[in-house]
């Protein structure tokens, strides 16, 4: 059976429990569901922040997520896959991103979720701007995110 990934980019918040339930509802072939939620922290590099604003490249953001979702589906035996990424203004404590993977066994679900998050960080066209007492500023990319993504490259 072909598995289609659910991919959404949206302003609105999402319900993690509902997304997990939707993926496994009525299925008896799924033995493992892994979910990763990325949440807005209240500080960045030790400085308190009021909010993040997420900008994206419409069209390419969806295409990049789809490309990596397709790769995850080809590398791991997944029964379901959901990726949701919010854009716009997000305050501390709110959800930013969700990856849910479902498989017969846990290893594929864990690995595929980690693979997708590593690539979302480094190749999906989203940018975070923070609001702090010093005014707005763009968050800088981190080298360790590139290293995390690079370990999935097949030699």
């Amino acid at each position, binding site marked *: 059976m072909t598995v289609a990934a659910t991919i959404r980019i949206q302003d609105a918040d999402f319900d993690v429990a509902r997304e997990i339930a939707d993926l496994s509802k009525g299925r008896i072939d799924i033995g493992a569901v892994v979910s990763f939620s*990325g949440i807005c922290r209240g500080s960045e590099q030790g400085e308190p922040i009021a909010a993040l604003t*997420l*900008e*994206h*490249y419409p*069209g*390419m*953001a969806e*295409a*990049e997520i789809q490309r990596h979702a397709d790769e995850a589906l080809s590398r791991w035996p997944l029964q379901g896959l959901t990726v949701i*990424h919010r854009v716009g203004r997000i305050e501390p404590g709110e959800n*930013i*991103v969700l990856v849910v993977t479902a498989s017969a066994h846990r290893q594929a679900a864990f690995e595929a979720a980690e693979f997708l*998050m590593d690539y*979302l*960080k*480094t*190749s*999906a*066209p*989203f*940018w*975070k*701007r923070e609001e702090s007492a010093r005014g707005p500023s*763009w*968050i*800088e*990319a981190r080298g360790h*995110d590139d290293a995390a993504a690079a370990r999935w490259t097949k030699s």
Partner: protein
Amino acid sequence: MKVKYFAWVRERIGKAEETVEPPAEVRTVGDLIGWLAARGETYAYAFEKPKVIRAAIDQTHVKPDAAILGAREIAFFPPMTGG
């Protein structure tokens, strides 16, 4: 061709997109960055560190040596910070 800018590249240039017609000797993405940087102060500021700038042709990531011939849409942006 249409050129799009995102995040601080967009803010520094002061516009999100525009249509440009570079001369024929501008062959690669790297050439285009150099050509755009010479258009004025705001462009020079946006492209002051060309090695930091990422690019996409028709919504696919490309390297600076990628040819721009036939491109409909070229985007320039900082390293991504989503997720």
